[in-house]
């Protein structure tokens, strides 16, 4: 089974992120093993549960969450990039960071890179 890892650097309110989501869904439907998605730079905002998107717009944030639930897709958040953007690693039910995301660092990117066949940046 082919292995894929994806790096996301664009925010939820960019259409570029919808492209990345479509790519990931296409890979899942093609039975590619996605070893993980790593959120870096402005991509970390995709893990922010307080992001509000108008109801008639594409629900980027929810789509990540449902991909995680449906396919157990590992979502890794670079916490340093997140902290720079107002998303600290705090305990509690009111946490900004949605629990579909794993708090990670760049070490996780090394791990993904060494397990995957292809690492694709979006």
């Amino acid at each position: 089974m082919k292995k894929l890892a994806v790096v996301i650097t664009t925010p939820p309110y960019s259409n570029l992120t919808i492209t990345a989501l479509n790519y990931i869904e296409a890979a899942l439907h093609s039975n590619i093993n996605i070893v993980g998605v790593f959120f870096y730079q402005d991509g970390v905002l995709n893990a922010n549960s307080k992001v509000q998107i108008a109801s008639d717009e594409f629900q980027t944030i929810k789509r990540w969450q449902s991909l995680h639930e449906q396919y157990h897709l590992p979502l890794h958040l670079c916490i340093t990039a997140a902290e720079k953007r107002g998303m600290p690693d705090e305990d509690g039910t009111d946490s900004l960071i949605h629990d579909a995301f794993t708090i990670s660092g760049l070490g996780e990117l090394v791990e993904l890179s060494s397990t995957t066949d292809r690492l694709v940046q979006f």
Partner: protein
Amino acid sequence: MTTLHIVRQSAYATNDFEQCIQVLNDTDLIVFTDDGCYNLTHNCQKRINEQVKQMLIADHAKARAIEFKETKVTAITMDDLVTLTFQADRVITWQ
């Protein structure tokens, strides 16, 4: 050895596609996604070797009302892009 180049930005706005062209090998593939679809008409097309295969995500071009000739560029789907990812030896995203 093939590199898949995913080109996501308009060459009319930024220099990214120009830099992509600088590292192209004849056996490489280009896939235009997002605003990269605008690059079909850009002048720097002239500097791309004819052997380099160019493709675009059909919906991304259609959404932007970009007309294209299938002789010059192949319209593909996201599924195809996934397949190409593994056919190529490596991927560079120009964004």
